[in-house]
């Protein structure tokens, strides 16, 4: 099973299937790779998007704060800062085209002591210098007016109205869906093992023996960009994992703020935030700890306690009783800045490495930037006359008025079958997820929000498994949480 291409079964899509020879192969279907793929899909090119996991957005892009940053955290001498500002401005159009949850709710940075106001001033000046839109310095009163749930210890702060929140995996899903709709070929469970360059093209082989050929290769392999670079004989560098742990709070929590709340940043991270997610829950975190094991997504008691403490310093009403779940994500850290460049060692090889924060914000601009690098390296770009920038919208029961829902159920009764009570998800939405290629429980979770609410799948998991088996013909032992050996069931009676 993989990411199948049922964009619309009625429509004759423009996918070129079966080919194993490409102009460009992008390694890594996270938010960088997905943006690059979608950008390249608008040109007359054969593009392959390669992912080692069972679904896209299953690496760094699945677990992060989901913030579109305000353009004030980094000095513009850094590439990441310039791409952040450019990328942030692209989100409104992308949302209109790609239908993913995004909202410019604004960001506040809270100073809890007078001395922190000096750091706030610095952020303000940096933001103005970067061209961040609408940024302002705030008094205590202004801060509490903007966000009444802040600590009474607030002395002032910064407000960046253009900052926002996004569901990162839905963003990636939409980008990849649109890219494949426009002809990009996706290979999942394709873990690159070997690469060889001859006769003006790369031959890239997977661990399972599959092989593709591509004239250009883009290394957007996230945490494993160092290993991929080595396989291609590119620059030697080491990507370090920096783990971030989070708590997710129930949508009914009293601590739901209306804006993203940041503390004053430290030298290594932007600190622990309180994020009202686009879908109505609240995220508190992340911690920042160096972690050499890039597959270790475990949370620890000490860090989780630290999150509650830091979160409460900003928003005192955060309660342990509202915690639905905890999770960890790993940032891919190379250096202070992104490393996006044409390789000096490997031919026709573009490095997109060290994409840590603000990578999600910058990602649309990364797509643009990499397109330009490829052009600079000799790739011929001819625009497609029939490029379609839109994805087909999936109606979501929780967003509909009773009248709209009533009409929709008449057309498709499966919209009246509510499978997930906590997040209000119908069977029709789950079927949509599966038909768009999300055939693991986590993939369905990220597409639909089932298993993400307060019961964490206690009521709906078995129903989703049954729908998955019915829709795909999978047997019980093929159902996994996130691919690989994450099998859900161990036997049949």
């Amino acid at each position, binding site marked *: 099973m993989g990411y199948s291409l049922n964009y619309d079964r009625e429509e004759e899509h423009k996918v070129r299937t079966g080919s194993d020879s490409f102009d460009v192969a992008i390694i890594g279907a996270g938010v960088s790779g997905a943006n690059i793929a979608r950008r390249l899909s608008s040109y007359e090119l054969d593009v392959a998007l390669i992912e080692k996991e069972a679904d896209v957005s299953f690496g760094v892009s699945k677990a992060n704060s989901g913030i579109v940053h305000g353009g004030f955290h980094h000095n513009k001498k850094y590439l990441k800062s310039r791409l952040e500002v450019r990328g942030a401005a692209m989100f409104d159009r992308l949302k209109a085209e790609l239908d993913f949850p995004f909202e410019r709710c604004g960001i506040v940075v809270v100073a809890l002591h007078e001395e922190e106001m000096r750091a706030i001033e610095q952020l303000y000046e940096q933001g103005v210098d970067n061209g961040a839109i609408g940024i302002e310095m705030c008094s205590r009163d202004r801060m509490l007016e903007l966000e009444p749930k802040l600590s009474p210890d607030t002395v002032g702060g910064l407000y960046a109205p253009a900052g926002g929140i996004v569901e990162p995996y839905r963003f990636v899903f939409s980008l990849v869906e649109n890219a494949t709709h426009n002809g990009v070929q996706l290979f999942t469970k394709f873990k690159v093992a070997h690469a060889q360059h001859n006769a003006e093209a790369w031959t890239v082989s997977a661990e399972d023996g599959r092989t593709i050929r591509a004239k250009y290769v883009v290394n957007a392999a996230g945490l494993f960009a160092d290993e991929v670079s080595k396989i291609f004989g590119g620059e030697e560098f080491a990507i370090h994992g920096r783990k971030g742990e989070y708590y997710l709070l129930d949508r009914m929590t009293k601590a739901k703020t209306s804006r993203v709340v940041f503390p004053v940043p430290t030298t290594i991270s932007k600190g622990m935030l309180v994020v009202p997610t686009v879908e109505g829950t609240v995220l508190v975190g992340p911690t920042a700890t160096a972690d050499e094991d890039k597959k270790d997504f475990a949370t620890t008691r000490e860090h989780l306690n630290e999150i509650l403490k830091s979160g409460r310093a900003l928003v005192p009403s955060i309660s342990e009783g509202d915690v639905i779940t905890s999770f960890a994500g790993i940032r891919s850290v190379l250096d202070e800045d992104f490393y996006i460049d044409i390789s000096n060692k490997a031919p026709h090889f573009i490095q997109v490495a060290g994409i840590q924060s603000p990578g999600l914000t910058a990602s649309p601009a990364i797509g643009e930037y990499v397109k330009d690098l490829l052009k600079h390296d000799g790739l011929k770009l001819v625009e497609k006359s029939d490029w379609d920038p839109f994805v087909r919208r999936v109606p979501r029961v929780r967003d509909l008025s*009773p009248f709209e*829902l009533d009409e929709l159920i008449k057309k498709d009764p*499966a919209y009246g079958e509510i499978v997930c009570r906590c997040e209000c998800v119908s069977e029709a939405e789950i079927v949509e997820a599966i038909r768009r290629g999300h055939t693991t429980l986590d993939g369905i979770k990220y597409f639909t929000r089932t298993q993400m609410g307060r019961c964490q799948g206690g009521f709906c998991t078995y129903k989703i498994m049954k729908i998955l088996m019915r829709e795909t013909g999978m047997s019980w032992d093929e159902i996994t949480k996130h691919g690989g050996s994450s099998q859900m069931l161990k036997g049949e009676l």
Partner: protein
Amino acid sequence: MRELNFDAAVIGGGAAGMAAALEMESRGLSVAILEREDHLGGILTQCIHNGFGLIEFNEELAGPEFAERFEDKVRKSKITAFTGTTVLDVETDEEDKVLVCASTHGVMRLHARAVVLAMGCRERNRGNIRIPGSRPAGVYTAGLAQRLVNIEGYIPGRDVVIIGSGDIGLIMARRMSWVGCKVHAVIEIQPYPSGLTRNIVQCLNDFGIPLYLSHQTTNIYGNERVEGVEATPMENGALRTDKAFRIPCDTVLLSVGLVPENELSKKLGVELNPMTNGAWVDSTLMTNVPGVFACGNVLHVHDLVDYVVEESRRAGGFAADYLAGKHPAKEIRVKPGSNVRYVNPGRLDPSRDNKLYMRTLIVKNDAALEVKLNNKVIRTVKKNHVQPSEMLSFTLGPADLAGCEGVPESVLEISIQ
């Protein structure tokens, strides 16, 4: 969009909902049950073990049999049972409550003068008790595992550790053993079990399954599938990390408590008691919202379905009284005293018998339950043994409560010594 009118609507078609609906129907009201599953009976339908009905039917039934008896009565009554119907939203329209419901037939707005909340409860999950570690496949709530084994016919895992000693977890320890799995341990953070004693004996002791009391689960291992858990003993309330040990397993079942599902109640403006996570109710089991009643596990988590139907039948009767314009003339406030976690209901009607349900905070042999009305002891009940997992109940009638005469703000305090 369909608009329908009923005298009373019951949200939830489990044991509580059916009992309340039957009582109201017998009082001549038009009643609707809204049930999101495609059958009535609620969680009973997956509880294929016996032990149900000893009080209600004076015989021992399996869960589905108990449910069937009520379902048969509902089918024979004039109650309209909407199955496969989810209540998405509730609003108040002057005296009426309006339930916005979705099913494969479309959306309907159901108007009712009285609403009985009978949505039951959900299982607390890993996030609620904040067990750190990785997030592999193979972590299930006990109820979900029960559904998979008993109804869907799948075995969620072979080598099992159960976290928490709630009744569903204990029942599942036995069930998993019966289907050929190895249950390696039950880990309980409290120094006493959270399930009924009879379940400890029949489900653990009879199968030689070790129960680790005063142990906290401090880690879950495995990236793809569960590979083990770490248990750490607690001594004097503190973790002894030096004595932590690892138990290899491929499956973790959680039985760490139940939470009343009151999200819809909150939308109606119902105030909740933080000790029960259920509504505050008066002597008629009515919430702070007039015409809205609560019963069964959505009001407070019960030990036995027999208690649930007893309480729910009364809730249905009180709702019928309310619609007939009958209200208690005077009420006495109930206050949980020493060593008492909560008492339901929160108010008593001194003109009739009142059934009280309560839970203690302590484990004690030879305990005494002391009832004081306006600071005067009116009753003492001896109990051989009390523990938090066993609900206590007794009845107070007009003779007991006569002392409230002439006292405008009477208070009844119940304590355990």
